[in-house]
């Protein structure tokens, strides 16, 4: 293959856009997906899954399957009940949270369509699938519990030992008295928004391969996971197996979006079957299984109420959530809506706030983190109700926002929800977005189309969003009863030849860590970008880490790396001073070279120092002979990316079809390490947020069967369905060592309300105040029809 790289030679440091180190092997198909790995003698698993949402399991007849060709074993829940009584939930959000047992294979009852009831292990995958079809399960059907409000009546209880379908009630009143505030307000607007369930839909489905080493008793687990470190610890915790005998490797991982921030029953079963049979065991899910059983995102009913003066000054906010847990609590299921608790006040100043959330069990696939995890839901609700309030007050929605947001001189600003925002400039991002969008021009066109009764109506949607990311300060996680910390680890090693090894505890699955972290290292050490290797995703190579989620890899992991590199520079400076016979204070460091002040000829490159310390012939007495730096960084605060997204939609009022005409995103993610990677994250994020607004939605029927079981029924938009995005950035450095804020979730959080606000804005003349997501052509058309009948004619 001929590679033509015509970019300038000086790319590779912070702020440049070198080619991603990850791409060559991805685009030439030289990848190591878990499913590509096939050690000799590997056995394959196929799961028998519940065909109904809620039932008691009578007998399970595995005899025919056990006798099928190539079948090595058939196991049911009872076979593993002692080894792993329950999968983990690491986030008990209240002291009295109901935490029912969640066996990796169902025991006694199935609680959602797709709940595993047996596993067939065979010498090849097709034999395992064929045999799984012959397993006969005798079910005693129970009523499905699909609707959250119905579930709370407890007429049918999923977890009978617990006696209730209510998992928890979490309440967080902050600031001034909420009832007095609302009683004294001129205007109160209340809305109910539905956050439909979403499928995370990574391109690579889940896959796991467990290889036992009989002699040592070690197990190596390859998994399509975002969290190799957490997975290792949790596998040890839930099975009682010694943690140091478990090695987890996340090889190439093809997307996660939070859905691979999980400890799944299939991973546990792969380990337990490999242990029992002493052979490598593999499982790769089919796309149908992905839809059915990979955890879903969102799934909330949001009752939100906002109080303001008649002039539009915000006074207070009440939020009451019903959060759909699905059938079981998985790794951070209950914590997802709680992360949102801090984000409803968004960028707006107000004195009173009350957040309540009830977690509810239903006979559906468990929910858990999905890109943004709690924060997109919050941002949607506040940005939607700001538009509703503006409509109520007959104000321009942007003017209402300007009246209430924190101005740039007011940072750091302590929010009513308890967080202190360190930095931001909402005015600057908004001004730039309005300019790129031609806000005034579009408003004029909108007025004209309305006046003309044009078949195509124009809608303008605003989202002036912020988010909390860089998860997370460990002490804050402790206050929220999360089961772990939020630090990250990094190691930088100078190799004898002057090349550099970087070890990170974060675990990429598409983001481009190898590139971004190389750029940070290149700038910190003054070594060429191509001389740096980034190691990750293997608990043996990178023993410490808390992995990748919550836009944390740069904001926490990158700063850990910056600190580790700083330690290398400190050591090298000391060595340079020793070898150059100068005082450390007189050593200057620039572009990879240590030189003596005033004597530029007296210098040592960092590569020369690396060789010198390896030889160890001559080094300071109070120094150990290596140039390695290791750092753990535990942030003191979250980071707060923000931005202004503006969307113009055209709605064909005859058909209800919505098309996005213009989308402008001005994001402030702080200092940018690699502008192209940031751009990619923004584009992908916006696409995923638009998907929630217009296209995607999980549908169950009344019996709890998943209707959107394939990608024919669950519509994921692709490039032809999306407009070209106009993107730009403003830059307000965050108060951290790199000035960075994170960008992994920003686009998704921002875009959903921008699009739906635009749809509703287009339809306001028809008396429409909301369209449920996804805003399908049919829903939009019906909204217009009902508006025309009963609305403002």
């Amino acid at each position, binding site marked *: 293959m001929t590679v033509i790289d015509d970019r300038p030679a000086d790319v590779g440091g912070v702020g440049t856009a070198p080619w991603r180190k990850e791409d060559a092997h991805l685009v030439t198909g030289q990848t190591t997906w878990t499913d590509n790995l096939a050690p000799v003698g590997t056995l394959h698993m196929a799961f028998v899954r519940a065909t109904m949402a809620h039932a008691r399991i009578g007998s399970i007849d595995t005899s025919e399957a056990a006798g099928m060709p190539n079948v090595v074993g058939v196991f049911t829940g009872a076979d593993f009940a002692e080894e792993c009584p329950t999968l983990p939930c690491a986030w008990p959000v209240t002291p009295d949270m109901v935490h029912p047992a969640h066996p990796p294979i169902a025991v006694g009852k199935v609680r959602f369509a797709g709940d595993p009831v047996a596993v067939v292990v065979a010498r090849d995958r097709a034999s395992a699938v064929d045999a799984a079809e012959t397993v006969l399960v005798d079910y005693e059907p129970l009523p499905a519990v699909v609707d959250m409000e119905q579930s709370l009546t407890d007429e049918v209880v999923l977890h009978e030992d617990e006696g209730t379908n209510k998992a928890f009630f979490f309440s967080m009143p902050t600031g001034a008295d909420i009832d007095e505030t609302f009683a004294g307000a001129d205007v109160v607007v209340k809305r109910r928004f539905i956050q439909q369930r979403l499928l995370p839909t990574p391109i690579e489905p889940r896959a796991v391969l467990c290889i036992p080493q009989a002699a040592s008793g070690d197990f190596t687990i390859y998994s399509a996971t975002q969290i190799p470190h957490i997975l290792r610890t949790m596998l040890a915790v839930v099975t009682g197996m010694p943690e140091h005998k478990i090695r987890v490797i996340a090889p190439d991982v093809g997307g996660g979006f939070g859905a691979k921030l999980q400890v799944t029953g299939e991973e546990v079963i792969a380990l337990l079957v490999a242990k029992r049979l002493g052979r490598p065991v593999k499982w790769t899910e089919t796309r149908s*299984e992905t839809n059915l059983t990979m955890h879903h995102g969102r799934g909330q009913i949001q009752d939100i109420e906002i109080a303001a003066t008649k002039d539009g000054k915000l006074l207070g906010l009440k939020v009451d959530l019903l959060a759909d847990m699905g059938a079981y609590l998985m790794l951070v299921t209950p914590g997802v809506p709680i992360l949102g608790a801090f984000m409803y006040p968004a960028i707006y100043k107000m004195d009173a706030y009350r957040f309540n959330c009830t977690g509810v069990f239903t006979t559906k696939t468990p929910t858990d983190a999905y890109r943004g995890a709690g924060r997109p839901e919050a941002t949607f609700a506040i940005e939607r109700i700001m538009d509703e309030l503006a409509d109520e007050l007959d104000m321009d929605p942007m003017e209402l926002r300007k009246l209430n947001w924190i101005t740039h001189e007011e940072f750091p600003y302590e929010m009513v929800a308890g967080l202190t925002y360190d930095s931001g400039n909402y005015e600057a991002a908004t001004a730039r977005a309005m300019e790129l969008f031609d806000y005034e021009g579009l408003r004029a066109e909108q007025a004209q189309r309305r006046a003309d009764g044009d078949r195509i109506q124009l809608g303008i949607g605003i989202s002036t969003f912020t988010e909390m990311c860089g998860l997370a300060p460990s002490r804050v996680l402790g206050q929220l009863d999360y089961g772990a910390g939020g630090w990250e680890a990094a190691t930088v090693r100078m190799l004898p030849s002057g090349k550099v090894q970087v070890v990170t505890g974060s675990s990429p699955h598409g983001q481009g860590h190898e590139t971004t972290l190389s750029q940070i290292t290149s700038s910190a050490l003054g070594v060429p970008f191509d001389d740096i290797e980034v190691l990750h995703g293997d608990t043996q190579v990178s023993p410490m880490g808390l992995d990748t989620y919550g836009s944390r890899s740069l904001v926490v992991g990158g700063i850990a790396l910056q600190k580790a590199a700083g330690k290398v520079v400190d050591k090298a400076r000391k060595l340079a001073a020793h070898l150059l016979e100068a005082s450390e204070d007189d050593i200057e460091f620039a572009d990879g070279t240590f030189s003596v002040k005033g004597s530029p000829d007296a210098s040592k490159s960092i590569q020369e120092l690396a060789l010198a310390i390896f030889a160890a012939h001559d080094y300071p007495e109070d120094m150990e002979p290596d140039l390695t730096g290791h750092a753990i960084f535990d942030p003191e605060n979250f980071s707060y990316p923000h931005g202004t997204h503006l969307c113009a939609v055209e709605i064909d009022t005859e058909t209800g079809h919505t098309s996005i005409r213009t989308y402008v995103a001005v994001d402030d993610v702080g200092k940018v390490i690699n502008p192209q990677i940031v751009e990619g994250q923004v584009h992908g994020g916006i696409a995923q947020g638009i998907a929630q607004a217009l296209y995607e939605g999980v549908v169950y029927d009344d019996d709890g069967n998943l209707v959107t079981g394939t990608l*024919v029924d669950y519509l994921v938009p692709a490039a032809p369905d999306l407009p070209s995005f106009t993107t730009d950035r403003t830059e307000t450095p965050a108060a951290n060592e790199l000035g960075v804020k994170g960008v992994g979730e920003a686009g998704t959080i921002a875009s959903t309300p921008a699009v739906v606000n635009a749809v509703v804005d287009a339809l306001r003349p028809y008396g429409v105040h909301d369209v449920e997501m996804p805003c399908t052509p049919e829903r939009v*058309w019906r909204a217009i029809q009902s508006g025309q009948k009963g609305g403002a004619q």
Partner: protein
Amino acid sequence: MIPASFDYVAPTSVDEVVSTLAEHGDDAKVLAGGHSLLPLMKLRFAVPAMVVDIGRVEELRGVRDAGDHLAIGAGTTHHEIVHDPLVRQHCGLLAEATSMVGDAQVRHRGTIGGATAHGDSAGDLPAVVSALEGTFVAQGPGGRREIAAADFFQGYLETALAADEVLVEVRIPKHDGWGFAYEKFNRVAQAWAIVGVAALVRRENGSVAEARIGLTNMGAVPVRATASEEALAGADRTEDAIRAACQHAADGTSPPADLSAQPDYRQHLARVLSARAVARATG
């Protein structure tokens, strides 16, 4: 998503295909582009014991000028049809509608024969061939027979083809001078049409002499909007006249309900899209 075990043959002549089908009867399935059959097999909704791949039968490919009609080999891909000069010259509606089938990858593998023999009225081509009043040619142990489009589609995923027959040719009458349009309405570009409308209009002396309207996904089989066709015959080429005629486009239809549309919305779309398609075809 793992199909059940099956046998596979790839004959190189129609005669071989026919004899293989005769041997295996209902246990055999013909594989063309595979976009309908393979997903059904992976979901185990279809479990043929024998898959007969017709992709190597050269005589099934290509477009031939047969005087008053074009003879299109059943194995001709969508991509070939979209770019075929004969099709573009004489049957522009087919070229336009075929260019909207699936995406580029689908159009490079999928065939006109597969897309019609599968008998899915949500596919674009059944309604288009119905509007064009095409003829299907099937070959079985007893030789060849011709089946008019109106008789070919018999129900959801059901056609007049017998288990021992293979579709060999689709004959499309030349429509030189007719205006045409295909209006496809869907939520994402790759999805099936929620509703599609294929319109053909022959103009004479400034008015509509004859119009044909084929409806996609408005019933178990492709449907002709006959009431609108009748109302359009002799109608003025004005927007009002076209709209009035197309108010009857959904008359007598019983469209399906699914996640994208309820029947009443489909009927509404059929009326709106028919008016648009006819207006465009009228030019």
